């Protein structure tokens, strides 16, 4: 409609509509306040402008007014706070059965790995109506994954995973920006998110899908690196068995208990001595510098595939985005 003068950003995710309403509410309140202040100043300036024969009336102040104009704005602001907090809570809590995509950011490029296997650069294909969770890390500086049409943004940090989720609601191609300054070509670190109808998405997926899923690549790597000599599949080897580990609490040798999430697995591969599982010796070598971020994601995807999804949650096997666990190692 207004190709050269857009007035409102496209809203293409489930967050976007809520965010737009909240923004509108804030705009209306702010505009009303601004107009009020401007009009009152204008009226006072006109009505009480300096004239001969009329003097100013000394007024000290009014406690009632002071309390009123402190409390009333605070009340309105608490509405803003609550609305923003609810949306933020939703944004920070990915639904448990989201399709997962790994994102690796580097100067100045986005690399994406779908669980089903396809890899993309500076482009992300997603189906309409599906919850998608991005598990993101950076291999150099801080970047920020920003899709204005989805109203989502999350900094992407080196050395750990951050996540972001959305449900696209409208097919189309949308800007993907890096929002955190990251060096020379920061403004060139852009790409696009392509939202497709499920049928088209499936067609794209079957076209783009290479030999195997991310977890299968991880399994191959797991064996190539010789991880399976210690982490044998069914019984406890020199290292703990990894079946059923992901998403569950792990007892550490110093008495602490941690939940084995992506960040824990990552740390255990790169700095194995940091959190050793109770009953095992800290003999595992560090893989820092030997596996890159994308390989780490493959390994983690593999380890995750060894844990069945929590009972009670129906996962339609074979559905697009569903991750069928590959056969265990050996």
């Amino acid at each position, binding site marked *: 409609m207004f190709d050269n003068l857009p007035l409102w950003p496209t809203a293409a995710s489930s967050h976007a509509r809520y965010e737009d309403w*909240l923004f509108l509410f804030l705009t209306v309140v702010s505009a009303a306040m601004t107009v009020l*202040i401007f009009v009152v100043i204008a009226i006072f*300036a006109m009505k009480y402008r300096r004239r001969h024969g009329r003097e100013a009336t000394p007024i000290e102040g009014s406690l009632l007014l002071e309390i009123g104009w402190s409390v009333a704005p605070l009340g309105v602001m608490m509405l803003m706070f609550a609305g*923003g907090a609810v949306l933020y809570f939703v944004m920070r809590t990915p639904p448990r059965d989201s399709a997962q995509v790994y994102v690796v950011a580097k100067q100045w490029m986005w690399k994406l790995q779908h669980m089903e296997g396809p890899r993309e650069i500076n482009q992300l294909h997603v189906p309409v109506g599906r919850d998608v969770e991005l598990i993101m890390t950076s291999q150099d500086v801080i970047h920020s994954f920003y899709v204005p049409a989805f109203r989502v943004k999350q900094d992407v*940090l080196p050395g*750990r995973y951050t996540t972001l989720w959305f449900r696209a609601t409208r097919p189309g191609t949308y800007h993907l920006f890096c929002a955190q300054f990251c*060096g020379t070509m920061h*403004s060139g670190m852009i790409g696009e998110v392509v939202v497709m109808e499920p049928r088209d998405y499936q067609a794209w997926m079957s076209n783009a899908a290479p030999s195997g899923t991310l977890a299968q690549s991880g399994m191959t790597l797991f064996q190539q690196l010789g991880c399976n000599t210690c982490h044998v599949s069914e019984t406890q080897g020199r290292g703990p068995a990894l079946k059923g580990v992901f998403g569950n609490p792990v007892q550490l040798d110093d008495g602490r208990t941690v939940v084995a999430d992506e960040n824990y697995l990552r740390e255990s591969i790169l700095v194995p001595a940091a959190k050793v599982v109770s009953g095992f010796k800290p003999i595992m070598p560090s893989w820092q510098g030997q596996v890159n971020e994308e390989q780490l994601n493959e390994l983690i995807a593999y380890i995750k595939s060894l844990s069945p999804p929590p009972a009670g949650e129906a996962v339609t096997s074979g559905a697009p985005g569903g991750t069928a666990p590959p056969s265990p190692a050996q």
Partner: protein
Amino acid sequence: MATAVVTTERKNYLNAEYGIRSWLLTTDHKRIALLYLLSITFFFFIGGFFALLIRLELLTPAGDLLTADTYNKAFTMHGQIMVFFFLIPSIPAVLGNFLIPMMIGAKDLAFPRINLLSWYIYIVAGILYLHCLVSGGVDTGWTFYTPYSSLFSNTHVVEAGLAIFIVGFSSILTGLNFVVTIHRMRAPGLTWSRLPLFVWSHYATSIIMLLGTPVIAITLVLVVLERTLNLGIFDASRGGDPVLFQHLFWFYSHPAVYIMILPSMAVMSEIIPCFSRKRVFGYTFVAMSSIAIAAIGFLVWAHHMFVAGISLYSALVFSFLSFLVAVPSAVKVFNWTATMYKGSVSFSTPMLYAMGFIGLFTIGGLTGLFLATLGVDVHLHDTYFVIAHFHYVMVGGAVMGYLGGMHFWWPKISGRMYPEGWGRLAALIVFIGFNLTFFPQFLVGYLGMPRRYWQYPPEYQVYNVLSTAGASILAVGYLLPMVYLLWSLRYGKPAPDNPWQATGLEWRTASPPPTFNFDETPEVTWEAYEYETMPLPDEVTLER
């Protein structure tokens, strides 16, 4: 005619001594204020030059005028110069320095030599920063985020960091000087409840300078050590945490926003009562809101980090506290507006700046609420919406206040009246130019244009063209006062001691004041802003 004036001229701080030594070795707070005035004006125009480069580059979507690296350096050095070498020292070091001793009836600040030392520290830091600039500059953004600044940037990060480390001591010493002076050197009878609000606000500012600045100093030293000695504090691959830097940086740099805006609020609380011929409405609330801003301002820093990977619950706390800090600012705006009620309002230049300030600061403050609202900030963070917001506060607010104050006290500082017609015109041009520059950035920010982009998608162009057009108008608005204020030094009408018939003690001495401000230490028996006891200013004196 001019010669006739000279023969009868009284001794004042300007003609007490002549020669470059008498300026460079002075301990007179008023002369030091002028040294600061010259230095910060110099840096303002360098910072403005970089702003010009930014706006010209963004005129077209393609990156065509500058290279990407040059552009990155331009916005970095624009930010660092404007924040650390202009805004933070602007009102405190010039107007505060000049006025606080006079407002409290003192001969000078508590530590005149330390005051001069602050200026020398500022100059050393300034020269170091200029050296960094001419030897290639720095490209980290004014925020120095790690690990880009510590491990990846190939520019002069260490030098820039050290310059800002050093300039911090200048503001620590100024803050220290103000706190001690305000506590110990008030004239007999000048109780805390009789203090001009200008002094209250500077007191709050000084507390922030004293408590906050050491933190940025330490943080920058850590970045420098990380770069030179490879400490690893912010390096994730060695167990460090890059986000820790952001906590440390914003722990100072959010309160630093209040270092920039509180002095401007200080100026407003003097100008508005004077040109409304009324006491300020709700004196106690205006005074206490400054203290509240200083206190709560230290507890909101992580609202810069809602998408940086902080925990969900800490984000909730920081969002709540950020709304809380908006209350005292709102209280001030309401009180200033109410001060005009049943007043006798005149539209002299300082008052035009004051009304402009209230309007722009209101917009700047309200758009801050958008950024405090968690779910909305996720979209707006690091876009041009943020750029527009903080320019409304720091240029629309702080610089408008600075210019308003410069005009208000120009007769006292220089002993000359500025040309009123030109003053009003410039105030109007600044207001229009400012809004045209920064309002479109709210819109393009909501559309999603990220900050610090050298090239951008073409659909954002119209807003950027408007912004660049506005910036050129704004530049005229800033150059005009430079010209006519300088002109007035020679051709301006000699100023009477109290041209505005204002109540402050600084107006009860000569214009320009003698070296020790007062011939006799005044004894204060009245409250601040007793405008009902003052006659109206003589319009004939003011018109020129």
